[in-house]
């Protein structure tokens, strides 16, 4: 017995004391201020403001009716419900969350005993419905749930502080009990590569495309061609981050999913950028070589049509690009052969996630290399029988025109707190995919698309723009869905030495559906406004 006493009292004393401490102190957290999210120029996109949560300890309130009246009036609560809570045996009840400072002080000054206050952080998004899917939102207790708020939560969150109050079993403060304050650490601030002005331009274009084409969805990305830094990323339909529509969870999940990086689609003609790059790199392209298009081509006894029923006749490869002729790309793909083509797709990252700094990224799909038939190869050549996310497509296109090296898309420029920079988005230059020369040839071909081909509508005075249109049929349950298209345009500028590359896609436009008609004009408009703002290249 004495041994047990000494064992408990001396040997295990420390460990028991630690456990006992937990019950001796009531802890009320002081929420750490969540870090802000800012654009590349320091414009605040998400910030925190302090609100208060009021608690009451019924045991400490002798005059329950009076207290219930004062509290229900000031806080706009139901008297009966509140009275019931105060009469209950619970040791602590939450009166109201999100109370502003003035109301909080009113309650504290009213003299009602047994009221406890804790600080809380409320998330505020000054621009409302802006960059919605990228920024994401937080839960009611300010934990990131979607987008960057979730992906970089541990940086933004900071460390909560605590107020420890010596209390008895039911939480009453002890008569001479000590109170300890533990300061929290505020969360780090996060600077994005996003530029508020460019984002506004893009949001605007997306919004109008949505209206003009009665589309199901519209999305757009503007990225720096060399670095992968994302200047803008917008998606509609969307919602105001300050009023997250939580009632309809299914719709909320649909609207908050960053489709541009999570959902794969069959790219169609925009994919021809990749096929072209591979064909040029493989030395299969020269000015004298001619390809014939009779409106369709037979591969493995299957007739595959070009988009132009009457055909394009005899063309060079460059003319095929300009005309977006399917037959040219079928032949190019078959000349490359399965092994060389698939090797190239892998190098361009078609089947791999880009590594963008956001959760929920999807990866492209291809037919397994071992079971690719000629007919599949021909289709892949012009962007069918392959699925990619828009961001994968954009990155592959960037690599094809930027001089030939891969880029990793990046939303965050840096994260820093008082102690300094915690994380930077800068990445070393990616590996080379095609040669500088091949890239240059391709740029020329793609500029021709805008100058005189299917991408005319993207042309802007004062800036040389290159690009490629795409019109993909949609599939539903494995069948081509009649009348449902995804219209895309990928454009880069300036065409001779690209700084920016943009993707614009309209999902299920009503009426016109060619990428050159539905998507290209918006890219032109975006570049026009962007260069007005950023200044034209000299």
């Amino acid at each position, binding site marked *: *017995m*004495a041994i*047990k*006493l*000494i064992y*408990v*009292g*001396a040997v*295990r*004393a*420390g*460990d*028991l*004391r630690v*456990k*006992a401490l937990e*019950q*001796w102190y009531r802890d009320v957290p002081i929420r750490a201020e969540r870090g802000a999210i800012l654009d590349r120029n320091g414009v605040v996109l998400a910030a925190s403001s302090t609100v208060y949560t009021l608690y009451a300890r019924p045991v400490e309130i002798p005059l329950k009716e009076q207290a219930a009246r004062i509290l229900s009036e000031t806080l706009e609560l139901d008297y009966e419900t509140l009275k019931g809570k105060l009469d209950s045996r619970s040791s602590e009840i939450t009166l109201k969350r999100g109370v502003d400072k003035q109301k909080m002080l009113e309650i504290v000054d009213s003299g009602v005993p047994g009221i406890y206050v804790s600080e809380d952080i409320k998330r505020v998004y000054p621009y409302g419905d802006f960059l919605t899917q990228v920024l994401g939102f937080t839960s009611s207790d300010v934990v990131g749930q979607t987008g960057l708020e979730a992906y970089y939560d541990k940086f933004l969150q900071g460390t909560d502080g605590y107020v420890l109050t*010596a*209390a*008895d*079993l*039911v939480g009453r403060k*002890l008569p001479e009990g000590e109170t300890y304050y533990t300061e929290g650490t505020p969360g780090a601030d996060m600077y994005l590569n996003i530029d508020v002005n460019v984002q506004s331009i893009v949001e605007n274009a997306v919004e109008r495309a949505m209206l003009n084409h009665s589309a199901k969805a519209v999305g757009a990305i503007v990225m720096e061609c060399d670095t992968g830094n994302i200047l803008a990323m917008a998606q509609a339909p969307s919602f105001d981050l300050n009023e997250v529509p939580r009632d309809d969870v299914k719709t909320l999940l649909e609207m908050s999913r960053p489709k541009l990086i999570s959902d794969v689609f069959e790219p169609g003609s925009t994919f021809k950028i990749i096929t072209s790059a591979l064909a040029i790199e493989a030395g299969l392209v020269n000015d004298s070589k001619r390809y014939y298009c009779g409106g369709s081509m037979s591969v493995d006894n299957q007739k595959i049509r070009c988009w132009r029923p009457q055909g394009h006749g005899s063309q060079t490869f460059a003319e095929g690009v300009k005309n977006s002729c399917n037959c040219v790309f079928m032949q190019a793909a078959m000349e490359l052969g399965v092994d060389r083509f698939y090797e190239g797709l892998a190098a361009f990252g078609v089947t791999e996630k880009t590594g963008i700094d956001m959760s929920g990224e999807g990866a492209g799909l291809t037919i397994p290399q071992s079971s690719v038939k000629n007919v599949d190869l021909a289709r892949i050549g012009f962007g069918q029988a392959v699925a990619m996310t828009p961001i994968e497509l954009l990155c592959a296109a960037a690599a094809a025109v930027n001089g030939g090296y891969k880029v990793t898309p990046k939303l965050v420029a840096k994260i820093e707190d008082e102690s300094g920079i915690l994380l930077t988005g800068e990445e070393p230059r990616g590996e080379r995919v095609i040669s500088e020369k091949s890239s240059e040839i391709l740029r020329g071909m793609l500029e021709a698309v805008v100058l005189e081909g299917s991408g005319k509508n993207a042309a802007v005075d004062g800036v040389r723009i290159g690009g490629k249109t795409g019109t993909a049929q949609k599939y539903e349950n494995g069948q081509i869905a009649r009348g449902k298209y995804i219209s895309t345009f990928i454009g880069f500028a300036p065409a001779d030495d690209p700084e920016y590359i943009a993707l614009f896609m309209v999902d299920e436009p009503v009426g016109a559906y060619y990428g050159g008609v539905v998507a290209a004009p918006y890219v032109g408009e975006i570049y026009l406004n962007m260069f007005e703002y950023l200044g034209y290249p000299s």
Partner: protein
Amino acid sequence: MTDNGGFNVSELRALKKLRMMIIVPAIALSVLGLIMIYSASSYSAKINYGDAFFYVKKQLLGFVPGLLLMYAAYKFPSEKLKKLSTWALAVSVILLAAVFIPGLGQTSYGATRWINLGFITFQPSEIAKFSLMLFLAKMYSEKPPRSVKYLILPFIAAAVVLALIMAEPNMSVTLAVAFAVLLVTVAAGLDNKVVVALTVAALCLIPVLIIAEPYRVRRLLAFLDPWANPKDEGYQLIQSYYAIGDGGLFGVGLFNSRQKYLFLPFAESDFIFSVIAEELGVIGCLFVMALYLVFIYAGIKTAFIRKDAFSRQAAFGLTIMIAVQALLNIAVVTGSVPPTGLPLPFVSAGGSSLMVFLSAAGLTAGFTRAEDPVKLPKSHKLFHRSYNVL
């Protein structure tokens, strides 16, 4: 004053020393009790009764008369005590039964253990356990339990008392008294074979009790691993461990307990030892345990030096009863045995209980009076014919 019973001066000095070894620890523990009750209960008493001294006042109301009773018991002639013991037991049994009379008995925590006479509330079991010891002393002194037939009457008496206490219910006191009865009977000269048989019987009884009332199984498990059920069975023991752990070797200082802020249940009664441990540390606990050991040693030594059989048996019985209860309480608080609710003699809150304990201590001390004690030759060998040590 002049009659020294033919003792020489050194023998008288030895007797006086023995007497002091009984009285001083009893009073010291009672005074410590008053202080610790204040410390343990001032917060809860202030909240529940609006008076921080609520329990202390009640304890003082037991302590002062208790001292008078102690003195009277000390002076009480042993022959008279022997004659009265049968009556004392009879009255005790009646009181134990009276608990079940509605209006007289008082129920709390689901057990009917108290008699409320308006001006005083007491537990008849407190009186009965000592009455039974005295009655057994009388029985065994007349006819030592060497033969089974001499066991019949004492065991019937014991069985009646135990059955009534168990009916309250108060399993802890029942077990403590049963254990004391066994020790007294063994010491009185029970045959070895019977001792073994009784031990086996007692061990067999434990599973029976467990099956009869399964909540005891949970309590048993709680004692082995209190953290398995920290909110239910393990709660009390965990809180006691926290107190002992917080106290460490030297304690957090008088009145500085944190566990008394309602965390420790029954901090002023069953778990007062935990508060002592927290405030005075392991060192303080060992000191308290030493006080009990001095008391027990002196009580048993007194039994040995008496010549007449009743005095020997009575001194032993009273001492053993207190010893069993003290050891059980400390064992519970330190998690050495399954938890059971027993107050710590002299220390725990309970005015009437304190009066009875002080009286019992007074009676024990009374046997050190210089009347006819004789030093017995010690020739006891373990595993002899019997454990008849007296």
